């Protein structure tokens, strides 16, 4: 018997004027698991979260959270969920503690309960020292932690985190990941949106890839990587040399992409033992000097590239246009 679905979405649609934000999305998140919703800016992630958290009304389809319909049973849904939105939704002029007291009370806790819970969460999220400082003086990482703490006040069964680490420095990001892992250990069901492939890979049990308001792929991180096929070879030459692509053509499993400056190349790798050594030796024999050789296991970035033909973020776009296909075997 399949596990109970805490989030169940069928054919969800939403448009804003002429823009189709969601074009029929289906999702299912079993209790106690993390679903990573992955996609570039504007893919529809935030729209989906807004509908699931009762902030926005769908134009079509249906969505249930913790068994309740998000449109007709919005108040019941609201009692089951915690939300940490993409833009911190804290009151800048209140202190961290006051924010938690206010949101706890409005979420249905009694005054004494709210006070105790606020102290617990401030401790848990390492904000105890800053508890009585006004939020406008908080760092980005502190705000995100407070935002997350606020979403946990009423001990929700389902948690929505919309890009919880966007804009954080690497250290704060890793720290946030630890916090998120801890939540699921407590049995919470979590839907997490992200633009970061490594984040989805790191945290999610299952991943759904969204682009232009549609689900274009879903599965575990491993299954998605398998779709892309094997490893990828990346190398950097000391100097541009057009003959290099031909020289390694026998060693790769697909077209070789070459960067504009002609020094960097990448291609799907063939599964050969000692591939890196063989590549270096081959190029050496051809009189081509190599600065760097790497054999990458596929990342989710590659998954995205394979699925959509374009990459995820701005770096990705730059790379997609930077490489032009020069030839295949």
């Amino acid at each position, binding site marked *: 018997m399949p596990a109970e679905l805490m989030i169940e979405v*069928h054919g969800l649609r939403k448009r804003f004027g002429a823009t189709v934000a969601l074009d029929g999305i289906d999702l299912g998140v079993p209790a106690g698991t993390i679903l990573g919703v992955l996609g570039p800016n504007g893919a529809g992630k935030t729209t989906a979260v*807004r509908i699931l958290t009762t*902030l926005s009304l769908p*134009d079509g389809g249906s969505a249930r959270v913790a068994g309740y319909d998000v449109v007709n049973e919005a*108040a019941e849904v609201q009692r089951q969920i915690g939300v940490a*939105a993409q833009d911190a939704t*804290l009151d800048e002029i*209140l202190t961290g503690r006051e924010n938690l007291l206010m949101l706890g*009370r*409005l979420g249905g806790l009694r005054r004494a309960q709210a006070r105790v819970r606020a102290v617990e969460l401030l401790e848990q999220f390492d904000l105890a020292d800053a508890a009585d400082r006004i939020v406008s003086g908080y760092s980005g990482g502190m705000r995100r932690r407070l935002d997350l703490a606020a979403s946990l006040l009423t001990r929700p069964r389902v948690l929505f985190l919309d890009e919880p680490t966007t804009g954080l420095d690497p250290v704060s990001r890793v720290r946030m990941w630890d916090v998120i892992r801890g939540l699921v250990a407590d049995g919470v069901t979590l839907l997490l949106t992200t633009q970061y492939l490594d984040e989805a890979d790191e945290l999610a049990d299952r991943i759904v890839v969204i682009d232009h308001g549609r689900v274009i792929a879903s599965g575990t991180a491993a299954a998605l990587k398998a779709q892309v096929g094997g490893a990828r070879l990346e190398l950097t030459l000391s100097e541009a040399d057009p003959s290099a692509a031909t020289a390694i053509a026998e060693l790769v499993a697909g077209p070789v992409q070459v960067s504009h400056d002609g020094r960097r190349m990448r291609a799907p790798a063939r599964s050969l033992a000692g591939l890196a050594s063989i590549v270096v030796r081959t190029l050496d024999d051809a009189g081509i000097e190599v600065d760097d050789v790497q054999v990458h296991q596929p990342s989710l970035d590659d998954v995205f590239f394979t699925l959509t033909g374009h990459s995820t973020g701005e770096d990705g776009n730059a790379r997609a246009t930077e490489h032009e296909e020069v030839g295949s075997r």
Partner: protein
Amino acid sequence: MSSAEGSAPAPAAARTLSAGSRPLRRKLGDVAVLTWRNLLHIRREPLQLSDVTVQPVLFTLLFVYVFGSGVALPGGGSYKDFAIAGLLAMNLTTSSMGTAVGLSTDLGSGVIDRLRTLAMWPAAVLVGRSLADLLTAAICAGFVAATGLVIGWRPEASAPSVIAGFAIFLLFSYALSWGCACLGMLSKGPESAQGIGLVILFPLAIVSNALVPTEHMPLVLRTVADWNPVSAVTAASRQLLGNPNPSASIHAWPMQHPVVAALLWSVALIAIFAPTATALYRRRTTD
């Protein structure tokens, strides 16, 4: 494409009903929490705070000593005694703009979104705002009265009547803040709310009997002033405070029955603007 197999989304009205089923005690709790939150804001925002502390003192001193030196009251009496109710009118009318600015600021931040994901009473956002602004209006009135007492203003009526003289202003200020709530939701942001608010509220306060008697105004202005709700409330307050009230000799109905007129105006404004504000809030927060 798998299209809507489940129930079609219900109209927004259905959602409002389900969220509105919160018991009254919880609704009042929500209002109390948001009122507390808004009061903290006012305490911590120097500009908002000065609107209800420094400004009333400054206005009172300026008007009494600058205007007071040049205005002769028909029927006699000191300008100082005449002016305090007018300064209450002036200060409370313009400070009700705080409602528009505050709501507009909230709508522009993510805070309202977070509140909307909670199973709270949605209208508590508006009621909490209006109550916090009522309390600040009371503070503002307190500063005007204290300044007045220091410079020699004295009410000449029984204590209950004096209390009523202030209460009628606070009721009117509460009614105006619902109008300003509508403005806050229609405006693009706090700056435009403030700009438009000033354009509406400043003339409303000035074209009245608040600071000068209306009888020497040009006919059109005088007619507007005599029927201006601010004039009715000011005349009512002067009457209740036992201060000089030259408008009593004017034949316009509100000037003859200022207390009734002031109450009617206030109730009418609330009856119009409270439901309008609620509807606008729902519209602003539905997408």
